[in-house]
């Protein structure tokens, strides 16, 4: 188990890393005691998006599938949560059941789309464009569902204006449900994130993960070695996409609202930007980088008014030019080189490909 957590496909090993991680965890756990409810809610909101980035990191960084479709599954997950929750109601664990059902719907959608693409031998840039096209098509479709004929059960999709009326998640508990709002929602998302992060680490360091990396490096060779490349890729695509759906469902629960603009442009480009910025070859880097970038953009928007977008653009372009492997991976490599006194980088650069 610990071997898998510390395996070769992930950055951050050894006592120093895990002590630091534990420290961060403790800070994250006690943090709500020291700030107001707004900040807690806000942090929970940032955390919601990270799942989507982790999913993309798995598909793209570890398996070489550049999916532009994370917001497609964000939309599927979010809308599915809303529709199912509105129809089931929050009572008797309805909301939690809706979350699970929404993830199941996302998984089915991902399996269908993934089967179509991966077994159709669509790869490279074509993979990106196909996922991009279906994402935009979904956004166009949802935009025109304003009329009353577009309803599923009692839930109206409500077009561009967005669907609302769903309840936030609630945890079924002895003696009454616990509404997952504010601080409770924060802890729920935090625990979920830790679990997903650790499971992803286990996954990519397992035999399965090694095969994924082999496929990324040379699909043909992997196939000749006897691995069913397409099945591995399909499973990866489904896992990564379901994480996109999880982000969608959590977001929908957080704000009790979802609209097609979360699916279309420019939203669709954001996960790719986060992951590429952080360093797509590593889950820890993606986790940290995505959080930094989302919180940083938010702060820029608050404090620099009209200049925010310009600063973001400069920051992004500048970082990429200086740190070719993504900010966090590059930083980690610098640290590693220092410690090893000129030794090799921890993560081989993906750039040569």
């Amino acid at each position, binding site marked *: 188990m610990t071997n898998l957590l510390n395996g070769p496909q992930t950055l951050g090993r050894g006592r120093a890393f895990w002590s630091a991680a534990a420290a961060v965890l403790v800070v994250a756990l006690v943090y709500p005691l020291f700030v*107001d409810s707004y900040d807690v809610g806000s942090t929970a909101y940032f955390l919601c998006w990270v799942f989507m980035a982790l999913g993309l990191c798995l598909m793209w960084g570890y398996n070489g599938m550049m999916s532009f479709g994370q917001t497609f599954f964000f939309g599927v997950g979010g809308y599915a949560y809303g529709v199912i929750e509105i129809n089931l109601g929050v009572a008797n664990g309805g909301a939690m059941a809706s979350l699970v059902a929404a993830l199941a719907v996302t998984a089915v959608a991902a399996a269908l789309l993934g089967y179509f693409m991966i077994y159709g031998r669509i790869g490279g840039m074509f993979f990106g464009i196909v996922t991009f096209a279906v994402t935009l098509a979904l956004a166009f479709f949802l*935009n025109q569902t304003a009329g009353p004929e577009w309803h599923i059960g009692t839930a109206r999709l*409500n077009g561009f204006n967005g669907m609302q009326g769903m309840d936030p998640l609630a945890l079924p508990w002895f003696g009454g449900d616990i509404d997952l709002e504010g601080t409770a929602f924060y802890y729920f998302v935090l625990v979920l994130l830790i679990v997903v992060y650790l499971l992803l680490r286990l996954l990519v360091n397992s035999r399965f993960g090694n095969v994924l990396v082999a496929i990324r490096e040379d699909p043909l060779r992997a196939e000749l070695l006897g691995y069913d490349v397409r099945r591995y890729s399909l499973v990866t695509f489904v896992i990564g996409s379901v994480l996109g759906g999880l982000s969608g469902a959590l977001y929908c629960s957080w704000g009790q609202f979802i609209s097609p*603009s979360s699916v279309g442009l420019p939203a669709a480009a954001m996960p790719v930007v986060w992951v590429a910025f952080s360093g797509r070859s590593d889950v820890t880097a993606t986790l940290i980088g995505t959080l930094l970038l989302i919180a940083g953009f938010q702060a820029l928007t608050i404090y620099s*008014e009209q200049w925010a977008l310009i600063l973001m653009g400069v920051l992004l372009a500048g970082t990429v030019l200086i740190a070719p492997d993504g900010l966090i991976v590059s930083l980690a490599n610098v640290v590693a080189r220092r410690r090893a006194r000129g030794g090799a980088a921890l993560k081989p650069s993906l750039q040569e490909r």
Partner: protein
Amino acid sequence: MKRRTLLAGAAALPLFNIIDSERAHADTKPIKIGLLEDISGDLAVFGIPKLHGSQLAVEEINGKGGILGRQIELMQLDPQGDNARYQEFARRMLQKEKVDLLIGGITSASREAIRPIVDRTNTLYIYTNQYEGGVCDASMISVGAVPEQQLSTLIPWMVEKFGKRVYTVAADYNFGHLSAEWGRTLLKPLGGQVVGEEFIPLGVSQFAQTIQNIQKAKPDWLYMLNVGAAQNSFFPQASAAHLDIPMGSPIKIMLGFEHKQFPAPVMANMYAAANWFEELDTPAAEDFKKRWRAKFPKETYINDMGYNAYVALYMYKMLAERAKSLNKDDIRKVIAKGDAGIDAPEGHIVIDPKSQHTSHHMRLLSVDKENKVHIVKDFGVIQPYWLGQVGCDLTKSNPKEQYTPDHLPPKR
């Protein structure tokens, strides 16, 4: 903060003195008003005049002693047209900054995104756009015009003047669909006929096919509900193909100031019903324009969104001062009296207690071949009657819903 420590330190003071001076402190500290307007991205063309309108009103009101003797502190955030950021910023305004009033939102989607958040607090929210109507929510006041004000004036006039065959070109989303439906409903008793109806996805900029469909259908006039800069490209393209058919619209000219962006005669033959447009020349309007132009000399056009944003603050001032309080319930008691109104640049306008929407002085404008705007007809003051008619009565209940002709309040 400094004052607090001072008071806490003076422990010898009798208790009631502390309370007294705390209250005096509350009475002089500024009123916080949160503003969410998109001043970046696609919607900046509307967001910037809206920001200007709010800034002008705040400056004027502060110059004349503020509201209830307190200055206004305007806090503006730029959600960049992103609904998720609207939600996040609305929470920030309401929970962290604890604003006394929230204003803003451009698209209906952004309004619907923040309404559930506002509804969980006891803060008032003012939406300052003309929109498709129907929001029945006690936390929200709408100061923009709604379909019954714009369309029940425009459409009968167009039918009488140009004829009964109508072709609808609408943006494919809620506003477009609802306004198209309003058109059908209003045309029926007039004997009008929709000879063609086309819905265009947002962001589409090429209209050759639409122009040809129109020519095939041979309508007497076009009912234009296209939205956004990309879709506005319809006008130069139709003009280049010499479509030459009169157009009526509830959003063109006064909102998107297309006549200031396209060269003449692209917008010729456009008719619109509006509560505000910069060419309005009453003395009150002239005075208002002069003050605006003095503060923002580079403004391309003072559009109705900017105007509404300006009016919203005076409306709030009137409400707060009549209620002698900023409390939402106190203010709603004033609205319930049914005479809560102000003398705005367009004329006297009043908030309707049942729907908390605003009456407007509507005028019909037309654009000539030189892109000049003329006032064709004065409809007088039109009430926002639809919500009250279908059963929304905020003085009795608060459903917090957006109703549409196909989604009406349950019959009692």
